[in-house]
């Protein structure tokens, strides 16, 4: 078994308010799906943001694939761990579906031969192949989420963290999402899903559950 994420003696407090998160010990395995559950406002998203380096801990450490996040830049973390926001429109900004997929390449003016194919393949695989020239403002919630996932997968992260991915999705889109998760697992990726919805928890009933309650993380 490979450990993807390991957290030791993590402590974090927001500047505003008196909320603190503490996580003495946490291991997330590569190639498996783990559930991070708990009520709204319990600190699930905070934990995820700490793992991705969006927030920096006030004490303790987070390691991804053996490297401490404190020594990595956000860009370096992103190449290992992908993070899907609860509201995926927050991570889309390029105008059209295709521009979104190639945004980073354009920005860095890198070679586009291989990545164009990769972008096309990903869109096809997630059922967005026909929507290449569609404006991101005219995508449905489910389509936005799948596009955000595609942009994340462009960087080929080995591990994915999904923040409340079922919120705002109707039944049909939820089923599509579950199939995508199965698919990503078959590819050998590790996944952590943050959720407070029973349907998803029941769907992945065998998965290890990490509970977050009032800022306390426990297995």
């Amino acid at each position, binding site marked *: 078994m490979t450990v993807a994420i390991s957290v030791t003696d993590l402590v974090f407090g927001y*500047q*505003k308010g008196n909320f603190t998160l503490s996580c003495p010990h946490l291991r997330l395995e590569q190639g498996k799906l783990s559930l991070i559950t708990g009520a709204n406002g319990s600190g699930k998203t905070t934990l995820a943001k700490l793992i*991705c380096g*969006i927030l920096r801990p006030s004490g303790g450490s987070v390691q991804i694939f053996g490297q401490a996040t404190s020594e990595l*830049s*956000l*860009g*370096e*973390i*992103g*190449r290992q*761990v*992908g*993070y899907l*926001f609860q509201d995926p*429109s*927050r*991570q*889309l*900004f*390029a*105008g059209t579906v295709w521009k979104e997929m190639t*945004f*980073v390449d354009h*920005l*860095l003016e890198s070679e586009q031969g291989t990545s164009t194919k990769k972008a096309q393949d990903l869109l096809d695989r997630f059922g967005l192949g026909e929507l290449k020239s569609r404006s*991101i*403002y005219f995508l449905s919630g489910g389509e936005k989420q799948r596009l955000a996932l595609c*942009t*994340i997968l*462009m*960087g080929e992260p080995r591990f994915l963290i999904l923040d409340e991915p079922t919120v705002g999705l109707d039944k049909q889109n939820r089923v599509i999402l579950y199939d995508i998760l199965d698919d990503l697992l078959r590819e050998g990726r590790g996944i952590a899903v943050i959720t407070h919805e029973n349907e998803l928890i029941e769907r992945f009933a065998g998965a290890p559950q990490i509970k977050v309650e009032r800022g306390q993380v426990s297995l």
Partner: protein
Amino acid sequence: MSRVDPRVKLFWVMLCTSGALIFVRLPWMAGLLLFCRLGTFSFGADRKALRGRLARFLPLFLLILLVHIVFVRTGTPLLFIRKYPIVTFDGLMRGATTLMRFFIILCSAAVMAGENTRRVLAAFSKMKVPYLFSFMLMIALRFLPTFSTSFSDALIALQLRGVELKRLSLVKKLRLYRDLLLPVVADAVVKSRVLAVVMEARGFGAMPRRTSYLEVRMTLRDWVLTGVLFVLGIVALGGYYFFP
């Protein structure tokens, strides 16, 4: 004291800010600063937000101080480098006064930020401010933070896609900011249209007036406080002009 009527706080903010704009002499400004700090302590300001804002404006503050020191050439020279006066008394004084001015404005804004939005709306409505105006203000204040969050979220998402912001050239960085600004603004426009529809569907704007479920009442203490503030304001203004 935090339950002082929002109108009294508004009056106090008005006094502080107009003082900050009128006064140019250091001792008066220092006095006002003291008066203002007293207010932020007793009215219950949003201190954490204030501290954050001060930290963010610190470089700007230092720059202002520096500009004054360098460009104000009158007054007794205080510091020389090879006979050339670097710091003059006037420059230092003016710099310090300007700093205090900004500080006072930030502090008084923090007092209003610490107040409950609904109480302020209710107070406005009692003051016969048209509700369209006060709601516009409230919505603007609520939207501004989301504006900056969505910008920083976009930046974070982009970095997590593997872009090293620090390694981008200045030209590319500027181009990136320009590219990100447009969708952020577009997003805000879409959100505000949705909000308008939702508010209207619940009757906003249906009548020339609206009632307020939340009531704010001026207590005797509030009236006394207003009186004291009023007298203080007159005395300070008179004092400032008649005893230079």
